[in-house]
């Protein structure tokens, strides 16, 4: 129970950090913000790797593998598409097709 409260403390502080940091993101970047923060929520990959890696071969580890695949879609897709968008934001686009 003590452990739970300590984790709650961390959650609350991280929420404050999130609110303070995100309110500084300008509306121009709200779409990359969404896809980028999406990629961050793929952090659940940690749990997925642990679940899939127990090697027990039972239902739990099957769920783990699916979780790994899902989380990797989230991570790879999220960061890559964010990068693709942000690459387009230029102050003075030199090369125009």
């Amino acid at each position, binding site marked *: 129970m003590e452990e739970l409260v300590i984790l709650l403390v961390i959650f609350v502080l991280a929420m404050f950090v999130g609110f303070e940091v995100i309110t500084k993101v300008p509306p121009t970047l709200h779409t990359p913000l969404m896809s980028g*923060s999406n990629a961050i929520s793929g952090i659940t990959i940690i749990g997925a790797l642990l679940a899939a890696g127990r090697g027990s071969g039972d239902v739990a580890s099957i769920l783990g593998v699916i979780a790994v695949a899902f989380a990797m879609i989230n991570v790879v897709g999220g960061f890559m*598409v964010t990068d693709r968008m942000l690459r387009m934001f230029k102050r*003075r686009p030199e090369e125009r097709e």
Partner: protein
Amino acid sequence: MSPFVMLLYLAAAVCFIVGLKRLSSPATARSGNLVGSFGMLLAIVATLVFGRILSFQLIIVGVVIGSTVGAVFARTVKMTGMPQMVALLNGFGGGASALVAGAEFLRPMAGATMPLNTVLTIQLSVLIGGVTFSGSLIAFGKLQELVTGRAVTYPLQKTLNALLFAATIALVVWLVISPDQITWFVVLAGVALLLGVLSVIPIGGADMPVVISLLNSYSGIAAAMTGFVINNHGLIISGALVGASGLILTNIMCKAMNRSLGNVLFGAFGATMIEAPSITGGAKDVTVRQVGPEDAATMLAYARSVIVVPGYGLAVAQAQHTVRELADLIEPRGAEVKYAIHPVAGRMPGHMNVLLAEADVPYDKLRDMDQINPEFDRCDVALVIGANDVVNPAARSDKSNPLYGMPILDVDKAQHVIVMKRSLNPGFAGVDNPLFYLENTSMFFGSAKASLEKLVAEVKAL
């Protein structure tokens, strides 16, 4: 967990925070995204190396499949398809969190010794993750037009949802009391999926951006919950960051659309809006000034300052490249061109900026509503393309109007206003727009892309 791995997870979380901080300006944003992805790499490597992993085969299968699918998605998606893409990614994130919690529940030898709070957080994680997963898939379906975009309603809808919600709570309590009942756990997962479907299906396609923002927040909260389950601060911090981000975006969208967060959270979407479109604004006894391509081209070519107001119609017509072409033609003639971006322009928060950036519009010409509004009265021509509700002056003054109180772009204060749309039909809110009948407004009828192409041709001919 060894203290060293814990420090690595902390480092990963710090990378995410720093990455998000760098999103505060377009100039540093890309490096911020790199810092964030570095953090993720750190977390993954730390887990693989120090996580007491026994079997790598399954993991490799999952990683390869997931990375490939993710990379293909990221490379092939069109910028106009970004809302669907984000919805889909949300869904996978939420699904992964729910699956991890499920694996933890089913894990052999766990059942008996599991402490109360672990059982509770597992349930919450499955619940939130499940809702996020199925809700996001429905949102994706609506945006991709696989499912009808209209608000699906049926009798006793609210009663049914309320009952389902009550049943969920009962299930969670029941499972906390006697945890080792796998059948009921599966039922809980099923109910979560159903709840996700049923809460998104009654929402109209145009409201999807709010839904996506909210589901974005949920996917973060689900990850944080899973962090509570597996006692991992990395997941908790990252999840909280995403949760906060989604909530802020939801809130911004609500404000810009003149709805309350409560109205959104409690699923009353669309309900108030559905009746509105009955007030058609079609034929009216008021004169409307029309303008043709030649006159419009002349006005633009000799203007000193032009503000382009892109709306939903521009996105639909995919006319963003043609707009930029027009700007490229009139800028050398001495006009200063800026773009006024309303927070709900486009199909998701910030979407219009991405579309214009894709069309090579420099980001320092993109202005937020608060920045640009004081500039309209010094502007020669405001060119409104496929926007309607967000430029409706009635929102400022007419208390009986459903739009009243919604922040709008003050285009009516410009010297001349050219409105490009196909008809006098109302926009999303179904309300007539007095802007069209103003002295200084000229209507340019036609689909955005075709009209802009005509304009470009005329300006070239000048």
